[in-house]
């Protein structure tokens, strides 16, 4: 009887830990898929798309997570295959300087114009 109790507790513990890791992996998968652009769809992430391309990427991301790869490693792997464009949040590098710095420059330019106008009014 005692052995049976121990076995039940053991099975339940293993079952719950598996469920927990499955949930964790699922959360990570959703997070990654929402940050990947479906390259053949218009304005859709891989998470939202049911295209052949998106289905394949979903499968690959799932396999990579199960293999134990971290989020950044998966992005790196996808970037190697399809370039920076596949990630919604592109890294700062020589190809994306303009993308990152242009809004900041425009913001500063707007500030300068506003300041000049205010000065002119005063």
């Amino acid at each position, binding site marked *: 009887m005692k052995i049976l109790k121990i076995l039940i507790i053991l099975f339940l513990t293993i079952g719950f830990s598996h469920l927990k890791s499955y949930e964790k992996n699922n959360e990570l998968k959703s997070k990654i898929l929402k940050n990947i652009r479906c*390259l*053949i769809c218009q304005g859709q992430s891989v998470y939202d798309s049911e*295209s*052949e*391309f998106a*289905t*394949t*990427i979903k*499968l*690959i991301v799932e*396999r990579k997570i199960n293999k134990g790869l971290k989020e950044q490693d998966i992005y790196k792997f996808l970037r190697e*295959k*399809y370039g920076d464009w596949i990630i919604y949040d592109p890294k700062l590098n020589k190809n994306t300087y303009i993308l990152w710095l242009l809004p900041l420059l425009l913001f500063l330019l707007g500030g300068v114009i506003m300041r000049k106008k205010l000065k002119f009014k005063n």
Partner: protein
Amino acid sequence: MKNKFILLIIIIFLSFCFIIFYKGLDNSTIYSPNISNKKIIPTFEAKDFNSMAYLNSEKIFEEDIYYIVNIWASWCVPCRTEHPLLMRLSKNQSVKLIGLNYRDNLNNAKNFIDEFGNPYSQIIIDNDGTLSFEFGAYGVPETLIIDKNKRIIKKFIGPINKKIVEEIKLIIK
């Protein structure tokens, strides 16, 4: 006077939109991205279409010649339009065509080959699309040229046409 001016602006704007969309209709759906970083083909193991035996990528691309990898499926309508051109390309001795059967039903794929002919020296099966992913493919049909150093030097997304066949012939010459 002001109303006439606004009307003129609207007409010019609409005409501009019309011309842009009309021109867009004629645009080719074939897209050939610039490959600045020529990647070496991936190493993989895949099932052979005929024998169902597993083949190594090194065995598939073992010869010191140009290879053309064509990603196709029996359910893909544009694949049918490009198939006669692939048949013509397969007669070229300086190149070998490798077919990558993408997410397909095996019987349908076999019927497709029986009906339209087999331009491929080897066909490998990609049941879940992951092999095509390794080649950096977007979907079907897609054609990749692999040079003697086993690097992907050109990619054509969409069905190939006569112009592309001429381009391929110039590359593999």
